[in-house]
């Protein structure tokens, strides 16, 4: 029992083999990594998640601005033109059915949200009003802000689709709300 290399407990013999080198490298390497990482943060060579986020936001804002410039201003005439493009409207319908249907019904007849197939509007009837409502949402009424989620292109497509179904008065739609739009 005096030999420390051969401890015995309840017949279990305990050897004292050397530590594997690769294991030691892993052990000290990980500690070294921790210190290097810490110094990297202090020197600002490594960003914190919040810093990385800010940088990414700035880059995306710039990209958005660039895209907006390329696209030109959104106005009623431009959206009206889009609504004449059947392929684009079809894509808008696809987004509408997956994203807007839970509240406005798949055919736009309204459910939790208002009927979009009549001629009455709560927040303005102009195409740019629709664009604003989809993009920014109507927070007080529980209409979500879809712009960041869908992106500008899909918002335009959805608006084009809604312009197409306006005043088609689908069967069983929700009663009109808001003001009658005279067009």
């Amino acid at each position: 029992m005096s030999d420390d290399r051969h401890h015995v407990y309840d017949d279990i013999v305990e050897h004292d083999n050397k530590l594997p080198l690769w294991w030691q490298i892993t052990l000290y390497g990980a500690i070294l990594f921790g210190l290097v990482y810490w110094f990297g943060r202090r020197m600002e060579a490594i960003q914190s998640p919040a810093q990385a986020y800010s940088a990414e936001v700035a880059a995306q804002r710039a990209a958005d601005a660039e895209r907006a410039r390329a696209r030109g201003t959104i106005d009623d005439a431009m959206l009206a033109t889009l609504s004449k493009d059947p392929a684009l409207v079809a894509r808008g319908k696809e987004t509408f059915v997956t994203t807007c249907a839970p509240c406005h019904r798949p055919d736009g007849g309204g459910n939790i949200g208002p009927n979009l197939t009549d001629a009455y509007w709560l927040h303005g009837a102009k195409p740019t009003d629709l664009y604003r409502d989809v993009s920014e949402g109507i927070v007080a009424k529980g209409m979500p802000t879809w712009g960041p989620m869908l992106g500008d292109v899909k918002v335009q497509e959805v608006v084009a689709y809604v312009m197409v179904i306006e005043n088609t008065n689908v069967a069983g739609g929700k009663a009109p709300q808001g003001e009658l739009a005279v067009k």
Partner: protein
Amino acid sequence: MTALITADSSLPSGAIASATETRRIVYNDWISRWFVWASLVFGVVGMLVGVVVALQLAFWQANVPPLLTFGRLRPLHTNAAIFAFVGNMMFAGIYYSTQRLVKARLASDLLSKIHFWGWQLIIVAAAVTLPLGYTTGKEYAELEWPIDIAITLIWVVFAINFFWTLARRVEKHLYVAIWFYIATIITVAVLHIVNSFEIPVSGLKSYSIYGGAQDALVQWWYGHNAVAFFLTTPILGIMYYYLPKAAGRPVYSYRLSVIHFWSLIFVYIWAGPHHLLNTALPDWAQTLGMVFSVALWAPSWGGMLNGLLTLKGAWSQVRTDPILKFFAAAVTFYGMSTFEGPLLSIKPVNGLAHYTDWIIGHVHAGTLGWNGLMAAGMFYWMVPRLYGRELHSKKLADAHFWLATFGILLYVVAMWVSGITQGLMWRAVDETGALKYPNFVETVNAIRPMYWMRFTGGLMYLVGVLMMAYNLVATARAGKAVDGEARVVVPKVEPVESTWIEVLFGKPVLLITVVAVIAATMAVVNNEASIVFAGMAVTAAVLGTIAISLATQNAQVQWHRLLEGRALIFTVFVAIAVLAGGIAELIPTLLITPAQVNASAESKPYRPLELEGRDVYIREGCYTCHSQMIRTFTFEAKRYGEPSTMGESVYDHPFQWGSKRTGPDLAREGSKYPNLWHWRHMIDPRSVSAGSIMPPFPGLVTDTVDASRTADKMRALRSVGVPYAAAEIQGAAADEAEQGKAIVDNLRADGVPDANPQSELVALIAYLQHLGVHPSPAPGGAAVSLAK
């Protein structure tokens, strides 16, 4: 130098025998038998509930509201699997091996009985209260305050029984298994007590005394280390006894044991914040969590190496002996998940994996693979010895092994695929910067086949456990209970090996103390240096222990060997090692004041009805599927809104940041949808969200909130720092009625004629509409779209 031990009657030569006496010990093995059966019974129950909740995710119709929904059963599954199955298994294994390793019968039969029955009562209490919705809302610590107190008392009974046995030991030096048991007992006590500080409101309702980010950090310091000190260290101790016993092979390396033990228990404690990466937690704490998790890799693998290398030369036995198969596979799974853990703790990797099923897969590789297979190996080895008969069927045990292993692989692969798929879908953006999958449900539908695969894997595993239960029961019935015996030779006069001063002020202690003091001073003088402090301290600790192991080269007895002869000093050192990380992380975080995080501008205490709604949210376990923490990623900001801040959850007792997104994040759910949407969604989620897998909660329409208790709740919250004015508390009932009426009026205008303003659903809507809405200048501006 110490007592001579022989397990049989072959006594050593006469010269020694004259100075010694021979003592016969009968071990207390009935306590291990009891714990084995309790573990099996609750293991089957816990895993059955696991299979049920897995089914509920694949097939939402399997939810049976109000009692048997995912949100209420999931805590039952985790508590049963961890504290009932592994807990009882651990007690069986610790009691059996400790007596034999220290050559002393368990100190007290009475304490053993109290320990056993107390623990089973706690489990039964958990099994009753959790489905009934009594929960603190903190993961793996859901049990309410009276049960928390009971756990503390029973744990103390366990500790007394264990340390008292150590005090009566004949074998002077403590074997590595005992070190791990000591670390388990000390640390679990600390974790449980600190995390469970809560302010009672009534017999089965309390609020955490910590709020927001502070509660998050305390909770994950606890949660992570529950994994470490309930599921890892005791099982490592068990491995160190049962694996070499079953293999009949020597343990590979003592010095590896020394180094990986101390580095493991010291480093583990710091790693908790890796559960909160990329959140509103301060970056220094996140960084600590990450670097210490990476540093945990080698200490964990030290245990794996000592296990696998002990099997070196026994691999032919592994092919034929099911027990060794279980141990070899368990240790391999341990190695796999302790490699995966550090990987998942790297901030960008965590960005992909967090909130997804990858984490669920990771946890189950550990629990099913490491804990479950270790338990099986131990039971198959132990039960024949406890009943004096060969195992009923080796073939059946073999079949169990293969079933379990394939079950785990199915489970884990399903979760990897599911987690990575969903993680990638959440972050996918198209060339215009828009989310590719703006509908959360799309990302759920994509992984539903994986939920079936996971269910299948889990079911296979459960069948394996049932086979084991049958096999063990058959073994026990064919044999009869036997208690182990040993004859030990005890010196009449205990030779003095060292003085306590030599041990307490040994060179390694002095070295570590000096470095730790320097590091701590740096951290206090310049608190940005806290990471340096951490890094230095860990390096010091590890280098110190390395130095100890090198001292083995000398002819003289090395310091650590002396320490092993001193149970009390050993325990004190363990306590210091595990407290260091907790103190360094928790104290600075708990000192953060609401003013420092701009609380008044970013959040507002809940109005009475919102508070009641929040309690419904907690009761239903919504946090098991919904996070309230938007991380610092642009793809999250696009989906959920600006990243969450510390100030926004400062009044949340307990915090509800969550850890899993089976459904979307709710941190900014307030005013996103109209009240009517929520009303319908709770009654029938699929009516507004086609393809949703959320359980329906129709009972909330008729169940009502008891407004008479709200004031008590507000008083309790005020005592832990939520700034409620006395007038607000007095007017609680009136305010509840007012806010309820406003929501009901709004619902009526939208076509729900008969909503009850006192219903739990209206309260829940009030709560949800509050989330993420910053206080407006107008009083009472809880931003609910009340007026049409």
